[in-house]
Protein backbone atom coordinates (compact mmCIF):
# COMPACT_ATOMS: atom_id res chain seq x y z
CA UNK A 1 0.00 0.00 0.00
CA UNK A 2 2.88 2.37 0.57
CA UNK A 3 4.11 2.23 -3.01
CA UNK A 4 6.20 5.21 -4.06
CA UNK A 5 7.22 6.49 -7.46
CA UNK A 6 9.34 9.36 -8.74
CA UNK A 7 10.11 10.85 -12.13
CA UNK A 8 11.29 14.00 -13.85
CA UNK A 9 9.96 15.45 -17.09
CA UNK A 10 10.87 18.49 -19.19
CA UNK A 11 8.09 21.01 -19.77
CA UNK A 12 8.05 21.87 -23.47
CA UNK A 13 4.75 23.75 -23.51
CA UNK A 14 5.23 27.28 -24.80
CA UNK A 15 4.28 29.17 -21.64
CA UNK A 16 4.88 26.39 -19.15
CA UNK A 17 2.60 24.78 -16.61
CA UNK A 18 0.06 27.58 -16.88
CA UNK A 19 -3.71 27.97 -16.67
CA UNK A 20 -4.90 25.62 -19.40
CA UNK A 21 -2.34 22.85 -18.85
CA UNK A 22 -2.68 23.04 -15.08
CA UNK A 23 -6.43 22.40 -15.30
CA UNK A 24 -5.69 19.19 -17.20
CA UNK A 25 -2.77 18.31 -14.96
CA UNK A 26 -4.70 18.61 -11.67
CA UNK A 27 -7.76 16.86 -13.08
CA UNK A 28 -5.63 13.90 -14.05
CA UNK A 29 -3.81 13.89 -10.70
CA UNK A 30 -7.14 13.86 -8.87
CA UNK A 31 -8.19 10.73 -10.76
CA UNK A 32 -5.62 8.74 -8.72
CA UNK A 33 -5.91 7.97 -5.04
CA UNK A 34 -2.16 8.31 -4.47
CA UNK A 35 -0.77 11.48 -2.94
CA UNK A 36 1.04 13.27 -5.79
CA UNK A 37 3.41 16.21 -5.53
CA UNK A 38 5.48 18.31 -7.91
CA UNK A 39 8.59 20.42 -7.45
CA UNK A 40 10.94 22.50 -9.57
CA UNK A 41 13.99 21.00 -7.84
CA UNK A 42 14.71 17.64 -6.24
CA UNK A 43 15.20 19.45 -2.94
CA UNK A 44 11.66 20.91 -3.08
CA UNK A 45 9.58 22.80 -2.12
CA UNK A 46 6.93 20.23 -3.06
CA UNK A 47 3.45 21.24 -4.18
CA UNK A 48 0.24 19.22 -4.06
CA UNK A 49 -0.36 18.13 -7.68
CA UNK A 50 -4.11 17.93 -7.09
CA UNK A 51 -4.44 21.60 -6.15
CA UNK A 52 -4.53 23.99 -9.10
CA UNK A 53 -3.71 26.86 -6.75
CA UNK A 54 -0.51 25.08 -5.67
CA UNK A 55 0.39 23.92 -9.16
CA UNK A 56 0.01 27.46 -10.50
CA UNK A 57 2.01 28.76 -7.53
CA UNK A 58 4.92 26.56 -8.63
CA UNK A 59 5.17 28.88 -11.67
CA UNK A 60 6.93 26.38 -13.91
CA UNK A 61 7.86 28.01 -17.23
CA UNK A 62 8.84 26.29 -20.47
CA UNK A 63 12.13 24.45 -20.13
CA UNK A 64 11.57 23.55 -16.47
CA UNK A 65 12.60 20.08 -15.39
CA UNK A 66 9.54 19.10 -13.39
CA UNK A 67 9.99 16.65 -10.51
CA UNK A 68 7.10 14.37 -9.61
CA UNK A 69 6.65 12.03 -6.68
CA UNK A 70 3.73 9.93 -5.49
CA UNK A 71 2.96 7.66 -2.55
CA UNK A 72 0.10 5.25 -2.02
CA UNK A 73 -2.15 3.23 -4.31
CA UNK A 74 -1.32 3.46 -8.00
CA UNK A 75 1.64 5.72 -7.27
CA UNK A 76 3.50 4.43 -10.30
CA UNK A 77 0.49 4.77 -12.60
CA UNK A 78 -0.18 8.30 -11.38
CA UNK A 79 3.38 9.47 -12.04
CA UNK A 80 3.44 7.67 -15.40
CA UNK A 81 0.18 9.23 -16.56
CA UNK A 82 1.23 12.75 -15.51
CA UNK A 83 4.65 12.45 -17.17
CA UNK A 84 2.90 11.28 -20.29
CA UNK A 85 0.55 14.29 -20.23
CA UNK A 86 3.47 16.72 -19.96
CA UNK A 87 5.32 14.92 -22.75
CA UNK A 88 2.23 15.13 -24.97
CA UNK A 89 2.42 18.91 -24.41
CA UNK A 90 -0.93 18.70 -22.59
CA UNK A 91 -2.51 17.63 -25.88
CA UNK A 92 -2.07 21.13 -27.19
CA UNK A 93 -0.14 20.99 -30.42
CA UNK A 94 1.88 23.90 -31.75
CA UNK A 95 -1.13 24.48 -33.97
CA UNK A 96 -3.32 25.23 -31.00
CA UNK A 97 -5.21 28.25 -32.28
CA UNK A 98 -5.81 30.84 -29.59
CA UNK A 99 -8.70 32.84 -30.91
CA UNK A 100 -9.46 31.59 -34.33
Amino acid at each position, binding site marked *: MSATAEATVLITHE*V*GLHARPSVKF*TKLAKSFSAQVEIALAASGPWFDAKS*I*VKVMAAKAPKGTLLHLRATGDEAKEAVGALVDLVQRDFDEGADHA*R*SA
Partner: protein
Amino acid sequence: MPAPLRLKGIPASAGYAEGPLHSLEQVCAGYSPSGLPDLEKATLEAAVGAAIESLAALIETSEGDAAEILEFQIAMLEDDALTGPAFAAIAQGSAADEAWQQALNVEISGYENSDQDYFRARAADIRDIRDRVLRALSLESGFTAPVGAILYGDDIAPTRFLETDWSKGGGIALRRGSTASHVAMLARARGVPMVVGLCSGDAAITGLALLDAEHGGIVLAPSAVEIEEFRKFSSSFAARQDKARAYLAGPALTKLGTPVRVQINIADPSDVDAVDVANCDGVGLMRTEFLFGHASGLPDEETQYRAYAHVLEWAGEKPVTIRTVDAGGDKPVPGFTVEESNPFLGLRGIRLSLAHPEIFRVQIRALLRAGVHGNLKVMFPMIAVPEEYERACVLFAEERAKLEAVGLPHKLPPLGIMVEVPSVAIAPEAFADVAFFSIGSNDLTQYVMAAARDNGAVAALNAVRNPAVLRLISQVAAYGAANGILVSLCGDAGGDPATIPALLEAGLRDLSVVPAQLAMAKAAIAEVSV
Protein backbone atom coordinates in the same frame (compact mmCIF):
# COMPACT_ATOMS: atom_id res chain seq x y z
CA MET B 1 -25.12 71.34 -17.49
CA PRO B 2 -21.41 70.66 -17.21
CA ALA B 3 -19.20 71.63 -20.12
CA PRO B 4 -18.29 68.84 -22.54
CA LEU B 5 -15.05 67.10 -21.65
CA ARG B 6 -12.89 65.28 -24.16
CA LEU B 7 -10.48 62.57 -23.04
CA LYS B 8 -7.92 61.03 -25.35
CA GLY B 9 -7.07 57.35 -25.38
CA ILE B 10 -5.74 54.57 -27.57
CA PRO B 11 -8.15 52.68 -29.84
CA ALA B 12 -8.14 48.97 -28.95
CA SER B 13 -11.18 47.93 -30.95
CA ALA B 14 -12.52 50.33 -33.56
CA GLY B 15 -16.11 51.52 -33.48
CA TYR B 16 -18.51 54.03 -31.95
CA ALA B 17 -20.76 53.83 -28.93
CA GLU B 18 -23.18 56.31 -27.44
CA GLY B 19 -24.60 55.57 -24.01
CA PRO B 20 -24.52 56.10 -20.25
CA LEU B 21 -21.24 55.50 -18.47
CA HIS B 22 -21.18 52.67 -15.98
CA SER B 23 -18.33 52.30 -13.51
CA LEU B 24 -16.62 48.92 -13.45
CA GLU B 25 -15.46 49.58 -9.91
CA GLN B 26 -18.92 49.22 -8.35
CA VAL B 27 -18.53 45.69 -7.16
CA CYS B 28 -19.81 45.05 -3.69
CA ALA B 29 -21.67 47.91 -2.17
CA GLY B 30 -24.29 46.14 -0.15
CA TYR B 31 -23.03 43.22 1.91
CA SER B 32 -24.13 43.32 5.54
CA PRO B 33 -22.26 40.84 7.74
CA SER B 34 -24.27 38.85 10.28
CA GLY B 35 -21.58 38.67 12.94
CA LEU B 36 -22.10 34.92 13.29
CA PRO B 37 -19.19 32.80 12.02
CA ASP B 38 -21.42 29.85 11.07
CA LEU B 39 -23.72 32.04 9.06
CA GLU B 40 -20.82 33.87 7.42
CA LYS B 41 -19.31 30.52 6.47
CA ALA B 42 -22.57 29.31 4.94
CA THR B 43 -22.99 32.60 3.09
CA LEU B 44 -19.52 32.42 1.59
CA GLU B 45 -20.03 28.77 0.61
CA ALA B 46 -23.25 29.72 -1.14
CA ALA B 47 -21.59 32.65 -2.88
CA VAL B 48 -18.70 30.48 -4.12
CA GLY B 49 -21.26 27.91 -5.31
CA ALA B 50 -23.25 30.59 -7.10
CA ALA B 51 -20.09 31.90 -8.73
CA ILE B 52 -19.19 28.41 -9.99
CA GLU B 53 -22.72 28.00 -11.32
CA SER B 54 -22.63 31.28 -13.18
CA LEU B 55 -19.25 30.36 -14.68
CA ALA B 56 -20.59 26.97 -15.76
CA ALA B 57 -23.53 28.70 -17.42
CA LEU B 58 -21.13 31.03 -19.22
CA ILE B 59 -19.13 28.09 -20.55
CA GLU B 60 -22.25 26.88 -22.32
CA THR B 61 -22.25 29.98 -24.48
CA SER B 62 -18.49 30.31 -24.96
CA GLU B 63 -15.92 28.46 -26.94
CA GLY B 64 -12.18 28.22 -27.51
CA ASP B 65 -10.04 30.50 -25.41
CA ALA B 66 -12.91 32.04 -23.53
CA ALA B 67 -14.25 28.66 -22.40
CA GLU B 68 -10.78 27.62 -21.26
CA ILE B 69 -10.40 30.71 -19.10
CA LEU B 70 -13.74 29.92 -17.47
CA GLU B 71 -12.73 26.32 -16.84
CA PHE B 72 -9.58 27.56 -15.20
CA GLN B 73 -11.59 29.87 -12.94
CA ILE B 74 -13.95 27.07 -11.94
CA ALA B 75 -11.00 24.82 -11.11
CA MET B 76 -9.55 27.58 -8.92
CA LEU B 77 -12.86 28.15 -7.09
CA GLU B 78 -13.24 24.42 -6.47
CA ASP B 79 -9.80 24.23 -4.90
CA ASP B 80 -9.77 24.30 -1.10
CA ALA B 81 -6.32 25.84 -1.22
CA LEU B 82 -7.95 29.00 -2.63
CA THR B 83 -10.94 29.21 -0.34
CA GLY B 84 -9.30 27.77 2.81
CA PRO B 85 -7.68 30.97 4.12
CA ALA B 86 -10.99 32.85 3.83
CA PHE B 87 -12.86 30.20 5.82
CA ALA B 88 -10.08 30.21 8.42
CA ALA B 89 -10.49 33.98 8.81
CA ILE B 90 -14.26 33.59 9.16
CA ALA B 91 -13.70 31.06 11.94
CA GLN B 92 -11.64 33.77 13.64
CA GLY B 93 -14.56 36.17 13.44
CA SER B 94 -14.11 37.94 10.11
CA ALA B 95 -17.06 38.87 7.92
CA ALA B 96 -17.46 36.81 4.74
CA ASP B 97 -16.78 39.65 2.30
CA GLU B 98 -13.76 40.93 4.21
CA ALA B 99 -12.30 37.43 4.67
CA TRP B 100 -12.74 36.61 1.02
CA GLN B 101 -11.29 39.87 -0.19
CA GLN B 102 -8.21 39.59 2.00
CA ALA B 103 -7.54 35.95 1.15
CA LEU B 104 -7.83 36.58 -2.57
CA ASN B 105 -5.74 39.74 -2.44
CA VAL B 106 -2.87 37.71 -1.02
CA GLU B 107 -3.22 35.28 -3.92
CA ILE B 108 -3.44 38.15 -6.44
CA SER B 109 -0.28 39.85 -5.20
CA GLY B 110 1.54 36.52 -5.54
CA TYR B 111 0.77 36.60 -9.26
CA GLU B 112 1.42 40.31 -9.64
CA ASN B 113 4.91 39.87 -8.23
CA SER B 114 5.86 37.08 -10.62
CA ASP B 115 8.80 37.77 -12.91
CA GLN B 116 7.08 35.94 -15.76
CA ASP B 117 4.65 37.83 -17.99
CA TYR B 118 2.31 34.92 -18.30
CA PHE B 119 1.83 34.39 -14.60
CA ARG B 120 1.58 38.10 -13.96
CA ALA B 121 -1.26 38.27 -16.44
CA ARG B 122 -3.17 35.65 -14.42
CA ALA B 123 -3.64 38.23 -11.65
CA ALA B 124 -6.55 39.56 -13.72
CA ASP B 125 -8.19 36.14 -13.61
CA ILE B 126 -7.90 35.95 -9.84
CA ARG B 127 -9.27 39.48 -9.48
CA ASP B 128 -12.15 38.37 -11.65
CA ILE B 129 -12.77 35.36 -9.41
CA ARG B 130 -12.61 37.59 -6.34
CA ASP B 131 -15.12 40.09 -7.73
CA ARG B 132 -17.47 37.42 -8.99
CA VAL B 133 -17.83 35.96 -5.52
CA LEU B 134 -18.10 39.44 -3.99
CA ARG B 135 -20.93 40.20 -6.39
CA ALA B 136 -22.64 36.98 -5.40
CA LEU B 137 -22.20 38.00 -1.77
CA SER B 138 -23.60 41.41 -2.38
CA LEU B 139 -27.24 42.03 -1.63
CA GLU B 140 -27.07 44.94 -3.93
CA SER B 141 -27.93 44.11 -7.51
CA GLY B 142 -27.25 47.65 -8.69
CA PHE B 143 -23.92 46.67 -10.20
CA THR B 144 -25.56 45.35 -13.33
CA ALA B 145 -24.87 47.76 -16.14
CA PRO B 146 -27.78 48.90 -18.27
CA VAL B 147 -27.77 47.45 -21.78
CA GLY B 148 -25.88 49.70 -24.17
CA ALA B 149 -23.77 51.28 -21.43
CA ILE B 150 -20.15 52.28 -21.83
CA LEU B 151 -18.25 50.36 -19.17
CA TYR B 152 -15.66 52.56 -17.57
CA GLY B 153 -12.85 51.74 -15.15
CA ASP B 154 -9.19 50.86 -14.71
CA ASP B 155 -9.45 47.50 -16.41
CA ILE B 156 -12.07 44.88 -17.25
CA ALA B 157 -12.08 41.15 -16.64
CA PRO B 158 -12.60 38.78 -19.58
CA THR B 159 -15.64 37.20 -17.92
CA ARG B 160 -17.23 40.58 -17.30
CA PHE B 161 -16.89 41.12 -21.02
CA LEU B 162 -18.45 37.75 -21.81
CA GLU B 163 -21.34 38.28 -19.38
CA THR B 164 -22.28 41.60 -20.90
CA ASP B 165 -25.03 41.78 -23.48
CA TRP B 166 -23.46 43.67 -26.39
CA SER B 167 -26.33 43.12 -28.82
CA LYS B 168 -27.76 46.58 -28.16
CA GLY B 169 -24.46 48.44 -28.42
CA GLY B 170 -22.26 49.68 -25.64
CA GLY B 171 -18.50 49.96 -25.37
CA ILE B 172 -15.49 49.89 -23.08
CA ALA B 173 -13.37 52.81 -21.90
CA LEU B 174 -10.38 51.99 -19.70
CA ARG B 175 -7.91 54.14 -17.82
CA ARG B 176 -5.30 51.41 -18.01
CA GLY B 177 -5.78 48.29 -20.12
CA SER B 178 -3.83 47.37 -23.20
CA THR B 179 -4.55 46.90 -26.88
CA ALA B 180 -2.85 43.51 -26.51
CA SER B 181 -5.05 42.29 -23.68
CA HIS B 182 -7.34 39.34 -23.93
CA VAL B 183 -10.41 41.53 -23.66
CA ALA B 184 -9.13 43.73 -26.48
CA MET B 185 -8.86 40.63 -28.65
CA LEU B 186 -12.37 39.54 -27.71
CA ALA B 187 -13.68 43.06 -28.31
CA ARG B 188 -12.17 43.19 -31.79
CA ALA B 189 -13.56 39.78 -32.61
CA ARG B 190 -17.07 40.84 -31.51
CA GLY B 191 -16.82 44.37 -32.85
CA VAL B 192 -17.29 46.00 -29.44
CA PRO B 193 -15.75 49.50 -29.43
CA MET B 194 -12.97 49.80 -26.88
CA VAL B 195 -10.49 52.52 -25.90
CA VAL B 196 -7.62 52.03 -23.45
CA GLY B 197 -5.14 54.33 -21.72
CA LEU B 198 -7.60 57.20 -21.17
CA CYS B 199 -6.04 60.16 -19.44
CA SER B 200 -8.90 61.06 -17.15
CA GLY B 201 -7.17 62.86 -14.32
CA ASP B 202 -9.68 63.42 -11.56
CA ALA B 203 -12.59 64.19 -13.85
CA ALA B 204 -15.97 63.01 -12.61
CA ILE B 205 -16.96 60.28 -15.04
CA THR B 206 -20.72 59.93 -15.18
CA GLY B 207 -23.67 60.54 -17.46
CA LEU B 208 -24.03 60.26 -21.21
CA ALA B 209 -20.84 59.76 -23.18
CA LEU B 210 -19.73 59.37 -26.79
CA LEU B 211 -17.04 56.78 -27.28
CA ASP B 212 -14.97 57.13 -30.44
CA ALA B 213 -12.87 53.98 -30.59
CA GLU B 214 -11.80 54.63 -34.16
CA HIS B 215 -9.61 57.62 -33.30
CA GLY B 216 -9.33 56.97 -29.57
CA GLY B 217 -11.35 59.30 -27.41
CA ILE B 218 -14.45 59.90 -25.37
CA VAL B 219 -16.66 62.96 -24.94
CA LEU B 220 -18.42 63.39 -21.62
CA ALA B 221 -21.49 65.57 -21.24
CA PRO B 222 -21.62 66.22 -25.01
CA SER B 223 -23.50 69.11 -26.58
CA ALA B 224 -26.28 68.54 -29.13
CA VAL B 225 -23.92 69.57 -31.92
CA GLU B 226 -21.32 67.07 -30.75
CA ILE B 227 -23.89 64.28 -30.62
CA GLU B 228 -24.99 65.05 -34.17
CA GLU B 229 -21.42 65.12 -35.45
CA PHE B 230 -20.63 61.90 -33.60
CA ARG B 231 -23.57 60.10 -35.21
CA LYS B 232 -22.34 61.09 -38.65
CA PHE B 233 -18.92 59.56 -37.91
CA SER B 234 -20.58 56.51 -36.43
CA SER B 235 -22.83 55.74 -39.39
CA SER B 236 -20.07 56.39 -41.90
CA PHE B 237 -17.85 53.98 -39.95
CA ALA B 238 -20.51 51.27 -40.01
CA ALA B 239 -20.95 51.66 -43.77
CA ARG B 240 -17.20 51.61 -44.41
CA GLN B 241 -16.76 48.57 -42.22
CA ASP B 242 -19.40 46.58 -44.07
CA LYS B 243 -17.74 47.37 -47.35
CA ALA B 244 -14.24 46.70 -46.05
CA ARG B 245 -14.82 43.12 -44.95
CA ALA B 246 -14.71 41.96 -48.54
CA TYR B 247 -11.15 43.28 -48.87
CA LEU B 248 -9.54 41.61 -45.87
CA ALA B 249 -8.41 38.35 -47.43
CA GLY B 250 -7.23 39.67 -50.80
CA PRO B 251 -3.99 41.43 -51.73
CA ALA B 252 -4.14 45.23 -51.51
CA LEU B 253 -4.47 46.83 -54.94
CA THR B 254 -5.24 50.42 -55.90
CA LYS B 255 -8.01 51.34 -58.34
CA LEU B 256 -5.42 51.12 -61.12
CA GLY B 257 -4.19 47.73 -59.95
CA THR B 258 -0.95 48.92 -58.35
CA PRO B 259 -0.02 46.49 -55.57
CA VAL B 260 0.55 47.91 -52.08
CA ARG B 261 2.12 45.92 -49.28
CA VAL B 262 0.11 46.03 -46.07
CA GLN B 263 1.85 44.74 -42.98
CA ILE B 264 0.77 44.86 -39.35
CA ASN B 265 1.98 46.74 -36.27
CA ILE B 266 2.08 44.77 -33.06
CA ALA B 267 2.90 45.71 -29.48
CA ASP B 268 2.94 42.26 -27.91
CA PRO B 269 3.86 38.85 -29.33
CA SER B 270 0.38 37.51 -28.58
CA ASP B 271 -1.15 40.15 -30.88
CA VAL B 272 -0.43 37.89 -33.86
CA ASP B 273 -2.35 34.95 -32.45
CA ALA B 274 -5.68 36.43 -33.50
CA VAL B 275 -4.47 37.36 -37.00
CA ASP B 276 -4.51 35.13 -40.06
CA VAL B 277 -1.03 35.57 -41.53
CA ALA B 278 -2.50 35.13 -45.02
CA ASN B 279 -4.31 38.49 -44.65
CA CYS B 280 -1.15 40.58 -44.33
CA ASP B 281 2.31 40.93 -45.86
CA GLY B 282 4.22 40.49 -42.63
CA VAL B 283 4.92 42.55 -39.52
CA GLY B 284 6.02 46.09 -40.38
CA LEU B 285 6.57 47.08 -36.77
CA MET B 286 6.96 44.92 -33.72
CA ARG B 287 7.47 47.14 -30.70
CA THR B 288 9.63 45.81 -27.90
CA GLU B 289 8.72 48.26 -25.13
CA PHE B 290 6.28 45.72 -23.69
CA LEU B 291 9.29 43.67 -22.59
CA PHE B 292 10.70 46.62 -20.72
CA GLY B 293 7.48 47.90 -19.25
CA HIS B 294 7.16 45.63 -16.25
CA ALA B 295 7.91 46.39 -12.65
CA SER B 296 9.99 43.23 -12.37
CA GLY B 297 12.90 44.88 -14.11
CA LEU B 298 14.51 44.57 -17.51
CA PRO B 299 13.88 41.40 -19.51
CA ASP B 300 16.53 38.74 -19.83
CA GLU B 301 17.84 37.46 -23.15
CA GLU B 302 15.78 34.27 -23.03
CA THR B 303 12.48 36.09 -22.48
CA GLN B 304 13.22 38.38 -25.40
CA TYR B 305 14.41 35.55 -27.62
CA ARG B 306 11.18 33.60 -27.02
CA ALA B 307 9.01 36.64 -27.72
CA TYR B 308 10.77 37.37 -31.03
CA ALA B 309 10.86 33.72 -32.13
CA HIS B 310 7.11 33.39 -31.46
CA VAL B 311 6.28 36.14 -33.95
CA LEU B 312 8.87 35.00 -36.52
CA GLU B 313 7.49 31.49 -36.51
CA TRP B 314 3.96 32.81 -36.89
CA ALA B 315 5.01 34.87 -39.92
CA GLY B 316 6.75 31.99 -41.70
CA GLU B 317 8.55 33.41 -44.74
CA LYS B 318 6.99 36.84 -44.45
CA PRO B 319 9.18 39.61 -43.02
CA VAL B 320 9.01 40.64 -39.37
CA THR B 321 10.51 44.05 -38.61
CA ILE B 322 11.41 44.37 -34.96
CA ARG B 323 12.22 47.79 -33.57
CA THR B 324 14.85 47.91 -30.85
CA VAL B 325 13.50 49.31 -27.61
CA ASP B 326 12.05 52.80 -27.98
CA ALA B 327 11.86 53.81 -24.34
CA GLY B 328 11.88 57.40 -23.19
CA GLY B 329 9.69 60.19 -24.50
CA ASP B 330 6.19 59.24 -23.36
CA LYS B 331 7.31 55.67 -22.55
CA PRO B 332 9.32 55.73 -19.32
CA VAL B 333 10.92 52.53 -18.05
CA PRO B 334 11.97 52.42 -14.39
CA GLY B 335 15.67 51.70 -14.04
CA PHE B 336 16.36 52.57 -17.67
CA THR B 337 14.99 55.96 -18.72
CA VAL B 338 15.89 59.21 -17.03
CA GLU B 339 13.67 62.05 -15.84
CA GLU B 340 13.94 64.99 -18.19
CA SER B 341 12.21 68.33 -18.50
CA ASN B 342 11.57 67.71 -22.21
CA PRO B 343 11.59 63.95 -22.73
CA PHE B 344 10.51 63.97 -26.39
CA LEU B 345 13.69 65.89 -27.18
CA GLY B 346 15.88 63.97 -24.79
CA LEU B 347 17.45 60.61 -24.18
CA ARG B 348 15.01 58.27 -25.93
CA GLY B 349 15.09 55.51 -28.53
CA ILE B 350 18.52 54.68 -29.94
CA ARG B 351 20.10 57.46 -27.85
CA LEU B 352 19.10 55.65 -24.69
CA SER B 353 20.13 52.23 -26.00
CA LEU B 354 23.58 53.52 -26.98
CA ALA B 355 23.90 55.13 -23.56
CA HIS B 356 23.27 51.71 -21.96
CA PRO B 357 25.18 49.29 -24.18
CA GLU B 358 25.02 46.55 -21.52
CA ILE B 359 21.21 46.52 -21.82
CA PHE B 360 21.22 47.03 -25.59
CA ARG B 361 23.61 44.10 -26.09
CA VAL B 362 21.16 41.74 -24.39
CA GLN B 363 18.46 42.73 -26.87
CA ILE B 364 20.91 42.44 -29.77
CA ARG B 365 21.90 38.89 -28.79
CA ALA B 366 18.24 37.87 -28.48
CA LEU B 367 17.55 39.32 -31.94
CA LEU B 368 20.57 37.64 -33.55
CA ARG B 369 19.52 34.29 -32.09
CA ALA B 370 15.87 34.74 -33.06
CA GLY B 371 16.97 35.54 -36.62
CA VAL B 372 17.21 31.86 -37.47
CA HIS B 373 13.46 31.42 -36.86
CA GLY B 374 12.23 33.40 -39.85
CA ASN B 375 12.61 36.46 -42.02
CA LEU B 376 13.81 39.01 -39.46
CA LYS B 377 14.58 42.67 -40.06
CA VAL B 378 15.66 45.03 -37.29
CA MET B 379 15.31 48.80 -37.12
CA PHE B 380 16.52 51.51 -34.78
CA PRO B 381 14.20 54.25 -33.48
CA MET B 382 15.03 57.97 -33.25
CA ILE B 383 18.12 57.91 -35.45
CA ALA B 384 19.23 61.51 -36.06
CA VAL B 385 22.80 61.18 -37.41
CA PRO B 386 24.61 58.39 -39.34
CA GLU B 387 27.03 57.81 -36.43
CA GLU B 388 24.19 56.40 -34.31
CA TYR B 389 23.39 53.84 -36.99
CA GLU B 390 27.06 52.95 -37.36
CA ARG B 391 27.54 52.47 -33.62
CA ALA B 392 24.49 50.22 -33.43
CA CYS B 393 25.80 48.16 -36.37
CA VAL B 394 29.14 47.75 -34.61
CA LEU B 395 27.37 46.37 -31.54
CA PHE B 396 25.52 43.88 -33.76
CA ALA B 397 28.81 42.81 -35.34
CA GLU B 398 30.48 42.38 -31.96
CA GLU B 399 27.65 40.33 -30.49
CA ARG B 400 27.50 38.25 -33.63
CA ALA B 401 31.21 37.43 -33.31
CA LYS B 402 30.66 36.34 -29.70
CA LEU B 403 27.79 34.03 -30.68
CA GLU B 404 29.92 32.67 -33.49
CA ALA B 405 32.72 31.94 -31.02
CA VAL B 406 30.48 29.93 -28.70
CA GLY B 407 28.76 28.21 -31.61
CA LEU B 408 25.18 29.41 -30.87
CA PRO B 409 22.88 29.49 -33.93
CA HIS B 410 22.25 33.06 -35.10
CA LYS B 411 21.70 35.18 -38.18
CA LEU B 412 22.51 38.83 -38.84
CA PRO B 413 19.28 40.56 -39.97
CA PRO B 414 19.11 43.50 -42.40
CA LEU B 415 19.46 46.64 -40.24
CA GLY B 416 17.30 49.65 -41.05
CA ILE B 417 16.22 52.87 -39.40
CA MET B 418 13.07 54.71 -38.46
CA VAL B 419 12.59 58.01 -40.25
CA GLU B 420 11.04 60.17 -37.55
CA VAL B 421 13.64 62.80 -36.70
CA PRO B 422 13.38 65.53 -39.35
CA SER B 423 17.18 65.48 -39.93
CA VAL B 424 16.80 62.07 -41.61
CA ALA B 425 13.74 63.01 -43.66
CA ILE B 426 15.38 66.22 -44.89
CA ALA B 427 18.72 64.64 -45.82
CA PRO B 428 18.14 60.91 -46.37
CA GLU B 429 21.26 60.72 -48.56
CA ALA B 430 23.34 60.77 -45.37
CA PHE B 431 21.91 57.32 -44.67
CA ALA B 432 22.65 55.62 -47.99
CA ASP B 433 24.05 52.56 -46.17
CA VAL B 434 20.92 51.53 -44.28
CA ALA B 435 19.04 48.39 -45.36
CA PHE B 436 15.62 50.08 -45.25
CA PHE B 437 13.67 53.11 -44.05
CA SER B 438 10.50 52.96 -42.00
CA ILE B 439 8.71 56.27 -41.59
CA GLY B 440 7.38 56.79 -38.09
CA SER B 441 4.73 59.31 -39.00
CA ASN B 442 3.57 59.98 -35.44
CA ASP B 443 6.93 61.27 -34.26
CA LEU B 444 7.88 62.79 -37.60
CA THR B 445 4.69 64.85 -37.48
CA GLN B 446 5.16 66.02 -33.92
CA TYR B 447 8.77 67.05 -34.59
CA VAL B 448 8.03 68.80 -37.88
CA MET B 449 4.99 70.61 -36.47
CA ALA B 450 6.47 71.16 -32.98
CA ALA B 451 3.18 69.85 -31.58
CA ALA B 452 3.39 67.11 -28.95
CA ARG B 453 1.24 64.17 -29.80
CA ASP B 454 0.05 63.76 -26.22
CA ASN B 455 -1.13 67.35 -25.81
CA GLY B 456 -4.79 67.91 -26.71
CA ALA B 457 -4.29 71.68 -26.77
CA VAL B 458 -2.15 71.44 -29.92
CA ALA B 459 -3.91 68.44 -31.45
CA ALA B 460 -5.01 70.42 -34.51
CA LEU B 461 -1.38 71.22 -35.33
CA ASN B 462 -0.34 67.58 -35.04
CA ALA B 463 -1.48 66.84 -38.60
CA VAL B 464 0.28 64.30 -40.76
CA ARG B 465 -1.46 65.71 -43.83
CA ASN B 466 0.16 69.08 -43.40
CA PRO B 467 1.98 69.78 -46.71
CA ALA B 468 5.33 70.07 -44.90
CA VAL B 469 5.04 66.55 -43.46
CA LEU B 470 3.79 65.09 -46.72
CA ARG B 471 6.61 66.73 -48.65
CA LEU B 472 9.18 65.08 -46.39
CA ILE B 473 7.45 61.70 -46.76
CA SER B 474 7.43 61.96 -50.55
CA GLN B 475 11.06 63.06 -50.55
CA VAL B 476 12.10 60.00 -48.57
CA ALA B 477 9.98 57.72 -50.79
CA ALA B 478 11.61 59.21 -53.90
CA TYR B 479 15.11 58.87 -52.46
CA GLY B 480 14.45 55.25 -51.54
CA ALA B 481 13.01 54.41 -54.97
CA ALA B 482 15.98 56.01 -56.75
CA ASN B 483 18.53 54.20 -54.61
CA GLY B 484 16.96 50.82 -54.13
CA ILE B 485 16.20 51.29 -50.44
CA LEU B 486 12.81 49.98 -49.35
CA VAL B 487 10.64 52.66 -47.70
CA SER B 488 7.63 51.78 -45.58
CA LEU B 489 5.45 53.69 -43.13
CA CYS B 490 4.39 52.34 -39.76
CA GLY B 491 2.73 55.27 -38.02
CA ASP B 492 -0.99 55.55 -37.24
CA ALA B 493 -1.45 57.45 -40.52
CA GLY B 494 -0.94 54.21 -42.46
CA GLY B 495 -4.17 52.78 -41.10
CA ASP B 496 -6.22 55.95 -41.42
CA PRO B 497 -8.50 55.72 -44.47
CA ALA B 498 -8.58 59.50 -44.72
CA THR B 499 -4.78 59.73 -44.95
CA ILE B 500 -4.04 56.69 -47.11
CA PRO B 501 -4.67 58.52 -50.45
CA ALA B 502 -2.13 61.21 -49.53
CA LEU B 503 0.46 58.59 -48.52
CA LEU B 504 0.12 56.64 -51.76
CA GLU B 505 0.25 59.86 -53.77
CA ALA B 506 3.46 60.69 -51.90
CA GLY B 507 4.92 57.55 -53.43
CA LEU B 508 4.63 55.03 -50.60
CA ARG B 509 3.69 51.46 -51.53
CA ASP B 510 4.30 49.84 -48.20
CA LEU B 511 2.14 50.55 -45.14
CA SER B 512 1.90 48.95 -41.74
CA VAL B 513 -1.30 49.14 -39.69
CA VAL B 514 -2.75 47.65 -36.52
CA PRO B 515 -4.46 44.31 -37.25
CA ALA B 516 -7.95 45.72 -36.61
CA GLN B 517 -7.40 48.23 -39.43
CA LEU B 518 -6.25 45.74 -42.10
CA ALA B 519 -9.58 45.46 -43.88
CA MET B 520 -10.33 49.20 -43.78
CA ALA B 521 -6.84 50.03 -45.01
CA LYS B 522 -7.09 47.64 -47.94
CA ALA B 523 -10.54 49.01 -48.79
CA ALA B 524 -9.20 52.58 -48.68
CA ILE B 525 -6.25 51.61 -50.93
CA ALA B 526 -8.70 50.20 -53.50
CA GLU B 527 -10.24 53.68 -53.84
CA VAL B 528 -6.98 55.43 -54.75
CA SER B 529 -5.97 56.04 -58.37
CA VAL B 530 -2.20 55.67 -58.37
